[in-house]
Every structure is written in structure tokens, then in C-alpha cells.
């Protein structure tokens, strides 16, 4: 819920910053330079090529390089270099045609299908699926037969064949974004659908569409060259595919001639794909922080000796938790000390970013990627478990330290029945048989208040409500009789009447099993309801720890006072003064 959730940056970045960071990526830079070179060659072909593409000198048939012909002559005595240069132009024009047709049809159809949905989407998707089912090459050959040798017509047709790729991409993107609240807000503001699409939706889809464009450009160059190689192009127009065909015919005379068009095609296609990858990398990366491996190594030394008080289950001393930031470790927990007695419920309360969840997760050994305990000790039952090796931690988790999460639904695997998800951990942790685990699971489900344990046991997670799912997770957490239960905002996602029931259940189970509980919450009502003691956290530090009655009756720290002052429990209802609007407008 709090702290180390990086802001979702990619979609927000402006085009300029994407372009810039793609160019700082070495592969992206090389690909961009090569593409600029190819495009410049195509544009300035007459200036670069020493000969016209059709110029032939009869004595230079299959001539070796030199004597005016930089790369030698082809099978008809034409300059390979000049044809390569003009070929770049014709090949790129062909690719551009296919690309424009595919993007224009696909993106437009995808925008409308995605935004308006309904029958339009169904029909368009049928057409797209139909097009995708057609074998492109065969269709192109058929059209070649009926429409003649223009490679440009073929590329228009190929563009239509490629459009479903753009269509599906765009439609899925639009479907993802059209229920965003800012689209609703734009509709409430009175924007027409066209303006919403233009202002809000195009912005989101442009980057993935650019990636797709780059990849499709590569594909269409390959297909176009393939068609020409098969002899389906216009022999009078110099293209890379046509050159390949010519060189192939003379392969035993001049084996090197096939190299040049081959290289041109490979380099151009590879550049398009690499550029697409560079853009994608950039978009997926978001805000980059230094990887943990480059950070200075940290070895947390135990603070003090194991507590001698046998009644003390958990003793956290001067705990510091950090995440890798741009300039070293960013501390999110800054020297927290907490004590938890056996059978005690400790509330860890604070606002978002206070470090309460990070503190609790340190005890579980489940910090998010990159997170480390930088210093301090977590004495659990006489043993320091701060930075314990993962395999040792695994033995503790589930068996002695259990966890109840905030979002019950996302913590149950939708693909498995609840019974399986309950019995599996028990069989692993306790080493009991399947039938024994099942008997225990049914008993547990009854214990957490399921009216029909067998039915829940056989149900899939989507068949039960959020409140029921949280009961199932509580059942799973207590299934191995843990000594310590860590509950992270266990009722925040639930309705208030369900929350009351779940708190009731937690209270009963805690009293019955005598386990200790750390309850992370932002809700002082929940604290007042169930906790014995409370620690108030702010900016990674505990500002106040007290017995629950003392804390509410006599808060010491200013921050606690401020928070309690912000609780809206006892407010005087407002009184309505009619005709207020008229007073204002008069």
C-alpha cells in the first residue's frame, strides 16, 4: 500500500524525452544512424549514384569491382552500386506504401472498435480475423496474376493484409484506456467523442503504435524483396529484391554480387527491429534506479544480544530499511524499534509513506525487489532474523510467521480451487497427508465462519465474495498455528459491515490461539477496536508507542494529536440554509 511503489512514468513521458533516451541507448543510436543513412541515400539517390540505374555497358557484364563500377557490374552490365542506391529508394517507397495503408486502416479501425465497442467491434474483429487467416504470399501471387507487375499495387494489398496487426494492438490499447477516470472526466466536461479520441486516447497509444510501425516496416521490406526475388516485380525498376534475383542467376559467375543487396536488406530490417526494441526498452523501463548489485554491500550486524525476557516474541531494534535510489540507498524505515509480547496485538499506524508496511514486510523477509535491511536487528523468539538467508526464512514463513494481505482477491490464484490452495501449504509445511490436510482445511473453514465449508472448499476464488476471500486467507494464515500473524491493512478493501465481521473473527482467533499480531493500518477505528498497544509511525520512524487506551486518551506526540484531530468521528452535522445560492448571486 505504501512506500516503494514507483510512479507509473512511461505513458506520461513526452515524445522528446523518449526520443532522447532511445538515442542514448547504444543499439538504438546505431539503428537510428543506419536508418538515417538509408533514408538519406534513398532521398538523394541521383546525387549519390554515379550512373543511372538503367545505364549498361556491355563489356562490364559481371565485371569485378573497380574501373568506375564501385561494386562491379551485374548480369546486364549495370553498376551494382548505383542500382543499390536507387534500389533503396524504391524499396523504401514500397515499404512506406504497405506501412501507411496498414497503419491508416488498422489504427483507425482499432480506435473506433475499441472506443465505441459493441456490434461495430464484433464486425471489425471478424474482418481482422479473416484477413489474418489468409496466407499473405498466396493472396499476393493471385493479385499479381490479375493486376499485373506493379510492386506498388502489391504493397497496397500487403498493407491491407498487415492492418489487423495494427487493429488488434490499437483496439486493445483503447479498451485499456477508455475506462480511465480522466476519459470520464473529459466526457463530463462535454468533449465530443472525436475530441476525446484525439486528445486523450491517441496520446496513450502513440508509443506502442510507433514500435509496431518500426517492426512492420522491417517485415514489409522482407516480403517485398521476397516477391521481387520470385520475379514478381517490375524488371525495369531497380530494387533490392530484383538485384538479389539477378545476382542469384549469376551466382556461379560472380558469387559476391549477391552479398550487396543481401546486406542492404539485412541491415535495414535489423535497424528497424533494433529501433523498435530500443523504444520498447525505454517504455518498459520507467524511472531507472541503480541496480542493487552496484550498491555498496550491506551487512547488518546484530544490535545487542538476544532478549532475555521469554515473554518477548519479537524485538525489533533500530531497524533501517533502504531501497536503491539515484544517489545511494534511500531509507524508508529509519531506525525503528518495536517490541511485541506473546499474545499481544500491536497496531502499526501511520499515513502512506510512513514505512509501516515496510517494517512489517522486513519481519516477513518479503521486501520488494532491491529493498534491504541496512542495519538493525529483528529478534524473533531469541534469534536475529534480519537478513536471514532465504531458505531459512522460508522455514519460518507460513509455519511460525503468517501473513494476511490487504487485497484478498489478488492473493488467491484464480486457476485453483480454494481447497487446493489451503491444503497445499499445510502438506508442505506440516508434512501431513492430503486427506489429513483436507480434514484440517474443512475444520478451519468452519472456524473462520464459512456457512458451508465443503462448498467453499470446492469453489474457485471468483465464486466467493471479497469478505469470504479474506476469511479464506485468514484460514490459510492460521492453518499452521503461527506464533506471529502479520496483517497488512486486512480490512481496508472490505465494506464496513464485512470489516466488522472480519475484525470480530481476528479477535476471536487471536484470543483462542494466543498468537501475537502486528496489524498495519491507517484506520484509528480499527486500532481502537482490536489492538492492545499502538505504535504511530511517521517518515520511517516511530513517534509514539503506547497502550491503546493511553494513546487515545492522552496522546503525547504532536503528530499523533494531529492525526487524532483529523478523525471525523464526532462532528456536528452542518445546518442547511436555504436560498444560499440566491444570496450569493444577488
Amino acid at each position, binding site marked *: 500500500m505504501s512506500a516503494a511503489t514507483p510512479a507509473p512514468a512511461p505513458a506520461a513521458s513526452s515524445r522528446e524525452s523518449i526520443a532522447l533516451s532511445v538515442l542514448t541507448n547504444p543499439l538504438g543510436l546505431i539503428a537510428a544512424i543506419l536508418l538515417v543513412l538509408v533514408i538519406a541515400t534513398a532521398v538523394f539517390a541521383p546525387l549519390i549514384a554515379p550512373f543511372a540505374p538503367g545505364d549498361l555497358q556491355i563489356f562490364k557484364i559481371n565485371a569485378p569491382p573497380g574501373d568506375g563500377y564501385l561494386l562491379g557490374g551485374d548480369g546486364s552490365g549495370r553498376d551494382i552500386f548505383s542500382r543499390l542506391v536507387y534500389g533503396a529508394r524504391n524499396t523504401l517507397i514500397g515499404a512506406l506504401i504497405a506501412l501507411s495503408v496498414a497503419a491508416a486502416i488498422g489504427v483507425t479501425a482499432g480506435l473506433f472498435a475499441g472506443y465505441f465497442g459493441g456490434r461495430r467491434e464484433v464486425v471489425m474483429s471478424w474482418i481482422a480475423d479473416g484477413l489474418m487467416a489468409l496466407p499473405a504470399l498466396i493472396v499476393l501471387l493471385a493479385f499479381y496474376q490479375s493486376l499485373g507487375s506493379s510492386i506498388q499495387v502489391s504493397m497496397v494489398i500487403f498493407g491491407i493484409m498487415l492492418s489487423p496487426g495494427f487493429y488488434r494492438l490499437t483496439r486493445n490499447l483503447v479498451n485499456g484506456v477508455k475506462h480511465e477516470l480522466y476519459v470520464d472526466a473529459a466526457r463530463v466536461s462535454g468533449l465530443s467523442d472525436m475530441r476525446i479520441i484525439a486528445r*486523450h486516447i491517441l496520446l496513450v497509444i502513440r508509443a506502442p503504435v510507433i514500435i509496431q510501425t518500426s517492426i512492420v516496416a522491417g517485415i514489409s521490406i522482407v516480403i517485398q524483396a521476397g516477391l521481387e526475388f520470385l520475379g514478381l516485380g517490375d524488371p525495369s525498376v531497380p530494387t533490392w529484391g530484383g538485384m538479389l534475383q539477378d545476382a542469384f542467376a549469376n551466382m556461379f559467375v560472380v558469387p559476391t554480387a549477391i552479398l550487396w543487396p543481401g546486406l542492404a536488406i539485412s541491415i535495414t530490417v535489423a535497424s528497424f527491429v533494433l529501433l523498435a526494441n530500443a523504444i520498447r526498452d525505454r517504455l518498459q523501463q520507467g524511472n531507472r534506479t541503480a541496480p542493487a548489485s552496484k550498491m555498496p554491500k550491506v551487512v547488518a550486524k546484530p544490535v545487542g544480544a538476544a532478549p532475555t525476557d521469554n515473554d518477548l516474541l519479537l524485538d525489533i531494534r533500530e531497524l533501517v530499511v533502504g531501497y536503491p535510489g539515484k544517489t545511494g540507498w534511500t531509507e524508508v524505515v529509519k531506525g525503528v524499534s518495536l517490541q511485541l509480547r506473546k499474545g499481544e496485538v500491536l497496531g502499526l499506524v501511520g499515513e502512506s509513506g510512513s514505512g509501516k508496511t515496510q517494517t512489517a514486510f522486513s519481519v516477513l523477509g518479503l521486501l520488494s525487489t532491491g529493498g534491504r535491511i541496512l542495519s538493525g536487528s529483528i529478534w524473533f523468539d531469541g534469534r536475529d532474523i534480519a537478513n536471514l538467508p532465504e531458505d531459512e526464512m522460508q522455514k519460518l514463513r507460513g509455519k511460525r510467521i503468517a501473513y494476511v494481505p490487504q487485497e484478498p482477491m489478488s492473493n488467491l490464484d484464480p486457476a485453483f480451487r480454494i481447497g487446493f490452495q489451503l491444503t497445499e501449504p499445510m502438506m508442505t509445511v506440516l508434512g501431513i497427508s492430503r486427506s489429513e490436510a483436507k480434514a484440517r482445511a474443512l475444520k478451519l473453514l468452519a472456524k473462520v465462519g464459512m456457512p458451508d465449508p465443503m462448498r467453499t472448499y470446492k469453489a474457485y476464488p471468483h465464486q466467493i465474495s471479497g469478505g469470504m476471500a479474506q476469511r479464506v486467507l485468514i484460514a490459510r494464515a492460521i492453518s499452521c498455528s503461527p506464533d506471529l500473524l502479520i496483517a497488512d491493512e486486512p480490512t481496508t478493501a472490505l465494506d*464496513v459491515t464485512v470489516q466488522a465481521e472480519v475484525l470480530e473473527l481476528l479477535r476471536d482467533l487471536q484470543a483462542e490461539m494466543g498468537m501475537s499480531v502486528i496489524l498495519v493500518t491507517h484506520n484509528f*477505528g480499527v486500532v481502537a477496536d482490536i489492538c492492545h498497544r499502538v505504535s504511530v509511525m511517521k517518515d520511517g520512524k516511530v513517534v509514539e508507542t503506547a497502550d491503546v487506551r493511553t494513546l487515545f486518551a492522552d496522546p503525547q506526540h504532536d503528530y499523533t494529536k494531529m492525526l487524532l484531530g483529523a478523525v471525523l468521528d464526532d462532528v456536528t*452535522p452542518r445546518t442547511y440554509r436555504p436560498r444560499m*445560492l440566491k444570496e450569493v448571486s444577488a
Partner: protein
Amino acid sequence: MSDDVIVQCIDVNTKFGALHVLKNVNLTVRPGETVGLVGESGSGKTTLGRAILGIGPVSSGRILFEGHDIAGVAPRDRKGNAASIQAVFQDPYTSLNPSMTIEDILVEPIVARRQASLEEARARVRTLLDQVNLPSDAAYRYPREFSGGQRQRVAIARALALSPHLIVCDEPVSALDLSTQQRVLDLFVEIQERTGVAYLFVSHDLSVVRHISHRVAVMRGGEIVEFGDCDQVTAHPQHDYTKRLLLAAPVADPVRQADRRAALRALNTGA
């Protein structure tokens, strides 16, 4: 009639296929008044708010706004004051387009409704930001540079841009921290007292609703089970469900909370 009622929902029904989400809902909001709409998930409170905004369906019934039926009329087809009905949504992280500056966001409704030219609208941005206590240099920054509470202030400023007579607030403070929540609620009250705007304030949190509302409607399963003055509904509830809802919300006082817990248990076993 239209003098003392700004919105009147008459027998509003909404069905999504076989799901009957709103069942004969009747509700009124008076000018300058806050009506709190409280209920649990699936009660239909958000659906009612969206129906009034014109972005959710109405299967039957009428929604009169200043005397004109606006049920099923899309926002862009609304005329007069109905066109200025605005919304503040729950999640300040997704209700602002991340790739637009605050200025673009605030200017959008003004330009869309042709209330002013782009230049005039830009000049108004500073006033709007001032109204929600944000510095004027906020205009050139992006939503990601602001905290949740600040973003919600931007969303409120956007709602105020058209000088609306009614703002539908859908859980506007649920995603905020306790201290931020109180400041944003105070801002809502202050704006109402200054401009006379009416709020339909949708929330699951009864303490929030009690803080800001003049009247409260309690919804359950698509029906309004209780509707009356705030004090009446939240201090002396008549309906069993309202009583349960009130007692279920834990209060920040261990001694009183223990009593309420016992009372809730008694109510549940008695029912």
C-alpha cells in the same frame, strides 16, 4: 418547485442486462446543499451518480435538473446549466491525464463548452488554482509532480472551471490520507459556502458523509432505504440496515468502540 430543488430523481431505474442496479430511486438535492449518498459496494451509489452526470445509463424514470429532464442525455448534448454539472472522481491518480499539464487539464472544459477563448481560459487558470489553494506555477507542471491531495485539488479546480450549480463527488477523499482527507473536505465546504454549489457526495464512509452533508441517503441493493436530515439519519437511524452500518464503522476510542461492538453484536443476533 424548481426554486428549492436543483436535482430531482423520480423513479429512476437502471438495468445492466438481468442486473437491476437502481430500483425506483427517488432523491432530491436543493441548491447549495450537500446530499451524502452512502452505501456499500454494489449498492448502486456510483451508478446513480453516473446517471446524473450523463455517463451512465438510465433504463426508466426521470432526472430533473432545474426542471428539465436530463436522464439519458449525454453531457455534450446538455444545454444551459445542466451542461455545467461536473464531477470529482475517487482516484486522483487516474482522473487526471498524465500527459497533460495542469493548465491543459483546467482549460479543457472551458474550451469544450465554448465559454471562453483559449487565451481567456488560460487567464482563468490562475484564479481556479487560487481557489483550491495551489500556487499559480502549478499550471505548467504535470500531474505526476503532485501528491494525492494536491491532485485532488486540481480535480476540484477542473470541476469548478464551469462555475457549476452541481458537482457529483464520487468517493473524492477515499484514496487520501487522514490529514489530507480533512483538508480536502474543508476545501469542499469552503467552496460551497462561497459559491453556493450543491454536492451529491457519494461515499462508503459514514463519518466523511456526516462531516460534509446536510442530508444523507443510505443505499442498499439499488434502493434508498433511508433519506433524511444528516443528524436524523446518522444519530437516530430508523432503518435496521442504517443502524448496522453506523455501528459497524469503528470509532477511534477504545472504550466507546467496545460498547458499539457489543451493540452491533446484539443487533446482529437479534435480527
